């Protein structure tokens, strides 16, 4: 039977030493695509967290009834249903943000973190543990998203939450926004730098030769 998990570890681990993006290296594609601005990144992070937590919960609740042969399809169905719900709710109550996120909300379905956690955790653990695991991994994903989006929006557009933060006098003195930061390539490099910084702070994360 499943081993006992400490609840605080379920939340805490994915934030750092078992972070879905920087350590498990899952969900990179969406991390590159929607980190141009902070606001969509935060909404995306929340959406992923909700989908992750509830799909973990639901799959864990029915884990003993799912026929093994169709378990991936059942997981996909649960995830897809939740994602469509989130998408519809955003369209109804956060229209501007949903326009910015456009297809990426739908693409949460293909976010490897979701399927990864369902297979690796929810199928073998109790509902409450699974729910917390979803919250934790969603938070870990969101944390990296927000760090990357912060750097990219600040350097790429000179704004934070669409408010100008780099004063006009900088521009007058010849400062130029780095348009490279707005392109996905720089997002990948930024994620790489975040991973680098994290690994030099926590050497135990580095793989042994």
């Amino acid at each position, binding site marked *: 039977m499943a081993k006992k998990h400490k609840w605080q570890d379920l939340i805490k681990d994915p934030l750092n030493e078992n972070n879905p993006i920087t350590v498990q290296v899952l969900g990179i594609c969406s991390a590159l695509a929607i980190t141009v601005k902070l606001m969509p990144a935060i909404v995306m992070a929340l959406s992923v967290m909700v989908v992750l937590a509830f799909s973990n919960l639901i799959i864990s609740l029915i884990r003993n009834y799912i*026929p093994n*042969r169709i378990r991936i399809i059942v997981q996909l169905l649960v995830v897809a249903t939740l994602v469509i719900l989130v998408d*519809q709710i955003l*369209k109804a109550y956060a229209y501007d943000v949903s326009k910015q996120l456009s297809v990426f909300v739908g693409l949460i379905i293909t976010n490897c973190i979701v399927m990864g956690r369902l297979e690796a955790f929810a199928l073998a653990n109790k509902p409450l543990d699974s729910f917390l695991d979803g919250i934790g991994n969603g938070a870990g994903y969101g944390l990296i998203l927000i760090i990357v989006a912060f750097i990219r929006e600040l350097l790429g557009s000179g704004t934070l939450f669409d408010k100008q933060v780099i004063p006009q006098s900088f521009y007058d003195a010849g400062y130029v926004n780095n348009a490279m930061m707005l392109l996905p390539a720089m997002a990948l490099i930024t994620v790489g730098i975040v991973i680098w910084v994290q690994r030099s702070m926590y050497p135990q994360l580095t793989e042994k030769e």
Partner: protein
Amino acid sequence: MDRNSNIYTILFAAVVVTVSAVLLAVAVMVLKPAQERNKRQEKMTDIMYTIGLDKEALSKKAAAEGKKLNYKVIEAYFNKYFTKQYALKTDGSVDNTVKAFDINMKAEIKKSEKKQRFPIYVGDVKGKKYYVIPLYGKGLWDDIWGYIALEADANTVKGVKFGHKGETPGLGAEITKKWFENQFAGEKIFDKDNSFKGITLSKSNKDPENTDKEDHEVDAISGSTLTSNGVTNMIQERLQHYVPFFNKIRQQKN
């Protein structure tokens, strides 16, 4: 029951699918009105934006009247400033069976020219007349759209508003930025001989400061030639359908 038997698997799948289908159907039905309202609100704010009533101006106005800028207030302003809207036929006559606001441009431009109806919104702000025309076309990656407002002479551009589905951020997506949209103000769509010219996004423009308002050109965006061409073509293609209507207005004036 054996959980690996075919019957169990099929039954399980059927139950799960039914539950999720019912759930989604209910959610879509419940949320539909709010989503439709968002779309209508966006359409109204976009149209008002082109004649200089942007969100800031509207919220100031609303605040002065002690109101908050919500859907109802926006609708009230829209109905106040845009008292007339027409769905035009190709010859410039009005089709009274269709309401211009309800026309979905994306679906409409796929119809043949004869079957299409061309929406136009007639605005009236403090005695000044404006004609706002919806645009729809193709950018580099996906659809682009917008609105263009003409002054009472049906020639001078008052303002524009662009939107896009998936143009490159920082390049093609710049068409939605203020600096780009501001270039259009004052440009003319007809030349001195009254032939229709549209507005071209030009890279070989000898007028990068855009001081010449008679050249039917504004500055294109560097690095996004195909989005710029898309905007040029969209303006050209959409506005030419309204030329008979514009000509009627222009003849009445002279």
